[in-house]
């Protein structure tokens, strides 16, 4: 089912042909990066209203200064065990495929420049995260980060669900 979606989201995926600035954050013990141009803002945890009949990783909706936006728990998205909210837990509001979506992460770390020469292709094994969701592996200041293709992470399964629920209504 996941395989079907890769083609749907291919055009929204960011090009890996250039390096650039990445915001790094932690999930479990691993450090990840997302392109800074996709990041709109970083906020603390706001009260979340759960929305029924949505996937487990969609935590619900929040009130972002009068605008309602959905929030996704990245740990749950990657099928990691849950963690209690701490003072460091925060929501990164990203623009993915033209949509505003909040992403809950354990803590944000820094913004760093990773030149293309320091980005390597993803090995097909050995990461917690599906290789389809990664742009590459970045190396900066002696630390390795998994660079996420946030468009694919946030949009992939949702597209399938929208299609399948439409099919259900037609049937």
């Amino acid at each position: 089912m996941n395989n079907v979606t890769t083609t749907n989201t291919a055009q929204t995926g960011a090009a890996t042909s250039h390096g650039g600035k990445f915001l790094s954050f932690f999930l479990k013990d691993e450090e990840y990066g997302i392109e800074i141009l996709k990041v709109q803002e970083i906020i603390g945890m706001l009260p979340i209203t759960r929305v029924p009949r949505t996937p487990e990783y969609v935590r619900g909706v929040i009130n972002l200064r009068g605008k309602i936006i959905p929030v996704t728990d990245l740990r749950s998205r990657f099928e990691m065990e849950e963690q209690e909210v701490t003072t460091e837990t925060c929501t990164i509001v990203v623009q993915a495929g033209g949509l505003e979506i909040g992403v809950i992460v354990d803590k944000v770390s820094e913004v760093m420049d990773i030149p293309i020469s320091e980005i390597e292709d993803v090995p097909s094994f050995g990461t917690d995260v599906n290789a389809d969701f990664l742009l590459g592996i970045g190396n900066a200041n002696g630390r390795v980060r998994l660079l996420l293709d946030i468009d694919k992470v946030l949009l992939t399964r949702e597209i399938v669900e929208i299609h399948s629920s439409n099919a259900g209504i037609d049937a």
Partner: protein
Amino acid sequence: MPVFRLHRLFKVSDAIEDPTNGLLMIVGDGRRRCALLVDELLGQQQVVAKNLGEGMGKVQGVSGGAILGDGCIGLILDTPELVALARQNGTVSIRKEDLLPQQIAAA
């Protein structure tokens, strides 16, 4: 009139499941009516209806959300969709023998 157990559609685990302990809220879409089993009625207020963000997509039974006075978000039910759902799944109706005599009289 069909009784619609909203907690089943919305998979709410700690809701009141016994219709005699909860409240039945009768809603209609103009032509047809159904009774929604709810825990509690909180009140009535005017709100601005918003969508749940483009990224959320369509949620069955929910038409949108509203920002309440305390900044939290309340979900707005899609009544016609719920009535249609309640009408098509006969399985959600409660049996007559589950009802108390005064409820049968009221229905």
